[in-house]
């Protein structure tokens, strides 16, 4: 029984089914992975391809870093091992930053899918490994050779047999070898799930070839994306921002041009790549660009090549967002994530009802110490405020564009012996505006573990405030204190037993003129304590008398 895609109803059912196969693969991966960034923040992705290597479905919850990267990785793999040379049971992998997702921590694992002897498609998973050797996850490196083991496209399994030499190579080069091998195997297992589910689906649906579905999926996606881009007025938009770098500020610049159903983004004007781990390979630039533009145009359409087709992205070679080997890229996200506010800012005038003012972002405090005679290395995450949108107050303590998860105080204390003394919302920290930016917070932690503890403080927004749009004010800056003395960011500190670390997390930018915020909204802000009487005067321009009058009603 063979059926073809005759109508949109069948197509919709098949399409959703393929996405759910990618979702199931991803779940298998998350459940079995050791890397905490995979488990906690789902720093992984899965993708299904047709036999021609076109991505038809990506897992729904894959994070932005992976938007549209997998097809390029697959093309690199097939260049090395052409399709005709692949056999059932083969599994290929690479962690090359330029072929994969921009840094060596992510491994891409691909399995060709065979129905009998016939190659019917491919599936791929990408996951963040617990370790890849080298200097670790830090901006301190100056070139990629310090960053760990770079695996070219390699057959990890050949016709179902694991390549023992690859295992030995990995074991000989990484710190927590059993966990890394465990994670590689989790990827292998998840692609096996993908293969089984895809073959079952094709048999059940009477499909011998995914090609016609891929054609239709890509066409529909591209059409939908173009239709949505067509609603944006033609025009050229330039923008430039600065972020904190390892050695002084980094400038990022873009030119965005909309033209009938398409958009081009050029990054000329960005600073050159530098001798630090913050360089961004182009694949990651492409992913973050695609993500930001998708949020602004058609967020609901699933990720695939069709969505990316109308987006043309260019960047000069060896600028910081098109870094070439041997640039160091370990923490490429710290620059890559800034492309999101860069693009939002570029389009703030063109798409005022859609853009998202800059957010305070999260603070990833990498804490290494010893507790109950066990060494540990953990990330304490706490978030700044979310940028406002037109008519929409930013949420307090909500991260963007990256999306880790806050650490429960009770869990943190039980695991590390560190004591969180307080964690409070910071009144007046959200940028003033017709819509207010989300509040940041103040967190104070005391080392009660009995041993010295290393804390890496690398988050930005200490010098360059989260900007508001359309007249909205910026959110308040991020700050660090040790034993109540202010200290600079981008450093590793040692907390002796009894020492305290205090952070203030940045507020989100506001949207629209503060004078446009209604007195009902201000009254509510006062009642909740999100804005103080002083804030009314200093940030919202009320006279002291008017502020006192409003306060008397709260």
């Amino acid at each position: 029984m063979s059926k073809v895609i005759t109508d949109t109803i069948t197509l919709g059912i098949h399409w959703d089914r393929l996405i759910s196969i990618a979702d199931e693969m991803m779940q298998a991966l998350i459940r079995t992975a050791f890397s905490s960034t995979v488990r906690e923040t789902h720093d992984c992705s899965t993708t299904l391809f047709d036999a021609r290597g076109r991505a038809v479905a990506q897992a729904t919850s894959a994070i932005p870093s992976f938007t549209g990267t997998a097809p390029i990785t697959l093309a690199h793999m097939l260049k090395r091992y052409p399709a005709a040379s692949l056999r059932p049971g083969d599994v290929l992998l690479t962690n090359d930053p330029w072929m994969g997702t921009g840094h060596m921590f992510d491994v891409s694992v691909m399995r060709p899918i065979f129905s009998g002897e016939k190659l019917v498609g491919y599936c791929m998973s990408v996951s963040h490994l617990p370790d890849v050797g080298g200097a670790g996850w830090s901006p301190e490196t100056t070139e990629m050779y310090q960053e760990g083991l770079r695996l070219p496209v390699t057959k990890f399994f050949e016709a179902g047999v694991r390549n023992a030499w690859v295992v030995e190579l990995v074991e000989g080069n990484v710190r927590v070898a059993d966990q890394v091998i465990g994670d590689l195997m989790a990827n292998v297992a998840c692609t096996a799930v993908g293969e089984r589910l895809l073959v079952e689906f094709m048999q059940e649906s009477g499909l011998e070839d995914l090609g016609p579905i891929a054609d239709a999926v890509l066409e529909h996606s591209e059409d939908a994306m173009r239709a949505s881009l067509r609603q944006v007025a033609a025009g050229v938009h330039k923008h430039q921002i600065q972020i904190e770098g390892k050695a002084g500020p980094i400038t990022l610049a873009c030119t965005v041009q909309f033209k009938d159903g398409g958009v081009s983004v050029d990054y000329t004007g960005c600073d050159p790549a530098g001798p630090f781990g913050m360089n961004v390979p182009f694949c990651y630039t492409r992913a973050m660009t695609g993500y930001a533009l998708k949020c602004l145009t058609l967020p609901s359409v699933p990720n695939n090549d069709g969505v990316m087709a109308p987006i043309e992205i260019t960047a000069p070679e060896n600028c910081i967002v098109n870094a070439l080997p041997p640039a160091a890229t370990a923490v490429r996200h710290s620059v890559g994530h800034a492309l999101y506010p860069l693009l939002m800012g570029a389009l703030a005038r063109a798409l005022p009802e859609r853009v998202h003012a800059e957010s305070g972002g999260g603070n990833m405090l990498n804490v290494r110490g010893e507790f109950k005679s066990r060494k540990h290395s953990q990330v304490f995450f706490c978030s700044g405020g979310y940028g406002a949108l037109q008519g929409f107050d930013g949420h307090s303590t909500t991260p963007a564009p990256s999306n880790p998860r806050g650490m429960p105080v009770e869990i943190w204390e039980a695991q590390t012996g560190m004591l969180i003394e307080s964690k409070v919302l910071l009144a007046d920290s959200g940028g003033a505006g017709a819509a207010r930016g989300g509040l940041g917070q103040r967190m104070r932690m005391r080392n009660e573990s009995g041993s010295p503890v290393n804390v890496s403080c690398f988050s930005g927004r200490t010098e360059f405030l989260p900007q508001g749009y359309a007249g909205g004010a910026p959110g308040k800056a991020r700050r660090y204190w040790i034993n109540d003395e202010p200290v600079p960011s981008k450093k590793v500190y040692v907390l002796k037993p009894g020492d305290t670390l205090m952070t203030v997390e940045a507020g989100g930018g506001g949207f629209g003129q503060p004078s446009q915020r209604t007195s009902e909204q201000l009254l509510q802000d006062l009642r909740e304590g999100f804005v103080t009487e002083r804030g009314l005067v200093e940030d919202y321009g009320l006279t002291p008398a008017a502020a006192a009058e409003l306060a008397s009603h709260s």
Partner: protein
Amino acid sequence: MTYRIGVDIGGTFTDLALINDSDGRVFTHKLLTTPDAPERAVVDGVRAILELTGGAISDVTDLVHGTTLVTNALIERRGCKVGMIVTKGFRDTLDMGRETRYDLYDLRLRFAQPLVERRARIEVDERIDHSGRVLRPLDAESIVKPLSEMVQRERLEAIAICLLHSYVDATHERQIAEVVRKHHPDLRVSLSGEGYPVIREFERWTTATLNAYVQPLVHRYLGSLESGLRTSGFEGRLLIMGSNGGTMNPATARRFPARLLESGPAAGILMSASVGRALGRPDVLGYDMGGTTAKGALIREGQPMKRYDLEVAHVHHFRRGSGLTMNVPVLDMIEIGAGGGSLASLDDRGMLQVGPRSAGAVPGPACYGRGGTTPALTDANLVLGYLDPGSFLGGRMKVDAGAAAAAIETGLARDLSATTTRAAWGIHEVVNENVARAFRVHASEHGVDVRRCTMVAFGGSGPLHAARVARKLKINQVVLPPAAGVMSALGLLISPLSFEVAMTRTTLWNDVDRQQWDEMFGILRQRAEEVLSEAGLSVTDMELHGRLDLRYAGQGYEVGVDVSLDRSSLQEVPARFDAAYASVFGITLADQQLEVVHWRLEARSPTGKQRPMQFASYSGQGEADKAPRKAFDGETGGYVEHRVLDRYRLAPGQTFEGPALVEEMESTTVVGSGVRGRVDQQHNLILEIL
């Protein structure tokens, strides 16, 4: 002659089931819910069902009640004004939430607001650490003044006391509670460290605030219900169904109302498990589908699977993450927005989508003729011929097949360039796919091979879709129990009296010795026994079930292992953990250390052997065949003649082949071609998917 009655209040209907304990005969009844005073439908319904059977209310020994009162109060935010007393430095925990987004592409997400306003929270200077050590002592009297001010200013009716690490030691919370009660005897008080205290402050405190939020409401409601029943002559025992599939007495329900969440669906799942056990099928997928949602639950070895948190009252498109998460023991269910009222539309891709938006009761599907113009699943099932416009709800409700077809034609078929029939089948099939997909993922999350399960389907819409969903899941047997429209009310009749308690004590497994084992389970046991003794169950009659949540030290996921409480179980734990871990993840990690995180215990009344229910309305006599009608056959893609059978007249042992439609009062079972049906001695309709 003694009777027991189950009463389940749903959004639209209040369902009743009565069992005569002397002969096992069961009667059912359904009446409209009375939202302004839900107890009225209960009292009226009890009177009506007793009239059906000719019994006297004085012969009713137990009345078991399931209610959506708490769930609805939370969704509609109808609870009382709650204040909160919290450890100094942590007043804002409820506002900060989990500090994460549940959707990366939707920039305008919404989060559920805390149940306590920020201005109704005061801090108290005290602190204990994760091991229970007091770092800052409590001066409970220090709260008297700020509390009185706050109570007056905010007109509070209840207080939630929420301190850090109270899952280890709730002494400070209890001391504060004493002071609150002394100075404000009218306030209801909830403690985060009481009842079900587990680690993670945001969820534990949210649970305590919910408990406080609905306490006055539940108290008043149970009061009215008790007096209404007493006035009508009821002298038996009133029991309230909890989220975990067990019942509690009214005093316990008043104290822990958060545990009434989702109690109706839990009873339905309990009934599915019972049906499976009776048929010798211990692995079951329970599938409940009604007007707005479909629910699925896995039953393994005859027991429904459990979980210990529940997210409710979603504020953003049913999205996980947009609700409030409660720490309560619940039967583990997956819920999706797919039901008879689910609306069909085209999404941004131009693809057909059904749900999660629902037409609700008003305006309802287009065929209700109440002003709805967007096609709903029920409209599609009418157009496809599965539902008979003449006998909707047993003929009690008139529906308009023409309006259904018109809505599909103009609202969908044109945009899809498809015929009305094709579009209607599309709606039906998209729902089948959505349900199958959700169940498949749920099963794989639990490491269950869903193909080995028997499906037990119920609810108003479940039987319409069951066979087709089962085929997609490669399940080859579907059971449709009798009276599937009041499945939850039936489930109430078989639910045991139960109370569950838990504590978090994270300990390396190697460090757990007999003494700690005895101490932990001793404390839990005492707490559970105390509650059940108050409900009138003697300690010697209680069954105790222990459970440990363990993980490999350093991992983030815990896996639950059932244990018996005697010390011999201690040695078996690692092996059991390995087996449970392997069944979910496919591997074990021999060299990693184990760590126990949560200790749980359920005490319940013995289940014993239940007498099979005899359904009075299923006579199995007379001519079952009704006039055949044309309905859509998915296998051949066209309308074909379907046999139409009266479910009440199908005799035990009777078999038939699809295509056929089996009709009963609240639902119709679609038996497609390639499906064989038979009726067993208990009047279960059993479908074999060939």
